[in-house]
């Protein structure tokens, strides 16, 4: 692999198709993520953002298409190779997914305890550093249930950062948080990227945080990419759905395809 310059591609998705049963949820997805950038996947609820993310981290196998991470085909790996590849990725889940039976500190220390042979005292120090990094120093002994929503997301980030990953994935980091806490999280995502030259893939439907963090935006509508590029390029696109998103306008009733509407009512194809 070439030395890491600005145009170094770390994730490449080619012709990705994902189905749940017979239903196609993602269709013909193609994009590339450069090393060290913040890549935002934007779209309305139910358009397949989380599904795309689940494919990128290998929680789901696509119906067809390829996902290359650092040039290696993630979809063709066996379990052992995938486990190794995953040690270089972190993921922040929508609901934080902290283990409820363990303290916040133990949550963060878990990957270190399982994947490394470090001394317990070293692990404790590293855990403290990670918690400090996300602004949760001193909360190591709290249980996840004792934290607020924003703090849980921060703790989830600390856990995702535990193994010093190259790529970090965020599923709706600011969903369900008040604007101030959400802005704090956006700042944190930026800080992580700056400090560690971390590649970040962020799924969101919040225009505000896109404006704050995005280097590249990939806009999805019903499982297809309708816009891909820097924020300004996207804003210039003359595509109704994209414009609606920027203007935060409701869908114009007259634009709803009447045949489709009928289909959705009757459930017939």
């Amino acid at each position, binding site marked *: 692999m070439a030395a890491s310059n600005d145009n170094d591609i770390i994730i490449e998705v080619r012709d990705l198709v994902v189905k749940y049963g017979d239903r196609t949820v993602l269709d013909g997805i193609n994009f590339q993520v450069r090393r060290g950038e913040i890549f935002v996947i934007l779209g309305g609820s139910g358009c397949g953002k989380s599904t795309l993310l689940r494919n990128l981290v290998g*929680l789901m196998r696509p119906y067809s298409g390829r996902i290359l991470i650092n040039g290696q085909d993630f979809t063709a790996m066996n379990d052992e190779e995938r486990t*190794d590849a995953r040690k270089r990725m972190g993921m922040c889940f929508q*609901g934080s*997914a902290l283990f409820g039976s363990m303290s916040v500190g133990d949550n963060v220390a878990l990957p270190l305890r*399982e994947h490394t042979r470090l001394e317990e005292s070293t692990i404790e120090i590293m855990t403290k550093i990670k918690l400090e990094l996300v602004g949760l120093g001193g909360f190591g002994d709290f249980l996840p249930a004792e934290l607020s929503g924003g703090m849980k997301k921060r703790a989830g980030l600390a856990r995702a950062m535990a193994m010093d990953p190259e790529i970090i994935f965020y599923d709706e980091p600011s969903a369900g948080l008040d604007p101030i806490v959400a802005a704090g999280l956006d700042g944190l995502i930026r800080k992580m990227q700056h400090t560690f030259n971390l590649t970040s893939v962020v799924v969101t439907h919040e225009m505000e945080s896109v404006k704050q963090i995005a280097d590249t935006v990939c806009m999805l509508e019903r499982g297809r990419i309708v816009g891909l590029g820097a924020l300004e390029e996207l804003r210039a696109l003359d595509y109704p759905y994209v414009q609606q998103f920027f203007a935060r306008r409701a869908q114009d009733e007259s634009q709803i395809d009447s045949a489709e509407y009928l289909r959705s009512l009757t459930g017939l194809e």
Partner: protein
Amino acid sequence: MTSVVGYSGRAALDALHAGGMVCVLIVDTLNWLFVQPLRGKGLRLRSTVEHFVEFGVRSMPIVGLICFLVGVIIAMQSAYTLEKWGATKFIANLVGISALRELAPLMTAVLITGRCGSAITAEIGTMKVAEEIDALHVMGLNPTKFLIVPKFLAMLVAVPCVTVLAMFIMILGGFLLSCSPLVGVDPVIYYEQTVNSLVAKDMVTGVVKSIFFGITICWVGIYRGFQVEGGAEGVGRKTTSSVVTSIFLIILLDLVWTTLFYFA
């Protein structure tokens, strides 16, 4: 009519599918129980011990209490018939045989299903709903090693242990009632009668049976837990069905086992 055929066909297919899934889970568990530790991937001993305490030690008070009462009850029921023949000392035989071969393993299994089988389903289901299982995968940690193997090992040991305790307590219950003024059997005679009527095989059948009950409770709980979809009410639904399925399979297993020993 067609609906009956359709329904039973679908039920049979579902059962087959469930069987297949459970087989996959079992192979995976055996892999993480025997093969992977040899490759230096370790077992989670601490978690296993914690689960053993939860499934075994903490079940003892309630299982003990209920089995004591059941012992008292079967002694009373036996006395009702045997008194007419003046053969009350044979209560000891009846209580001993039923406790060892049947009631202690069964009551223990049913109670542990209610206490722990449901808890296993709820725990795994909640973790699934909260994306915690996905989080394990993403961190490169295997859910079988993390969640299943410790529960499986703990259950495998806990159920037989509690069953043996239940056997003795049930016999004690029968003994206390029979030797009380209510029935009035001589304690020494009752003791001798118990010792003479029981053979090692009686206890072995009970204990072996209870091992299979433990495996059933654990597997049904885990399988139902991984089936959970869609939020908190999904967890509730599968927890209920975990208990029902588990008790049904325990009775079925009991029938097969008893038939084998009746003819063998």
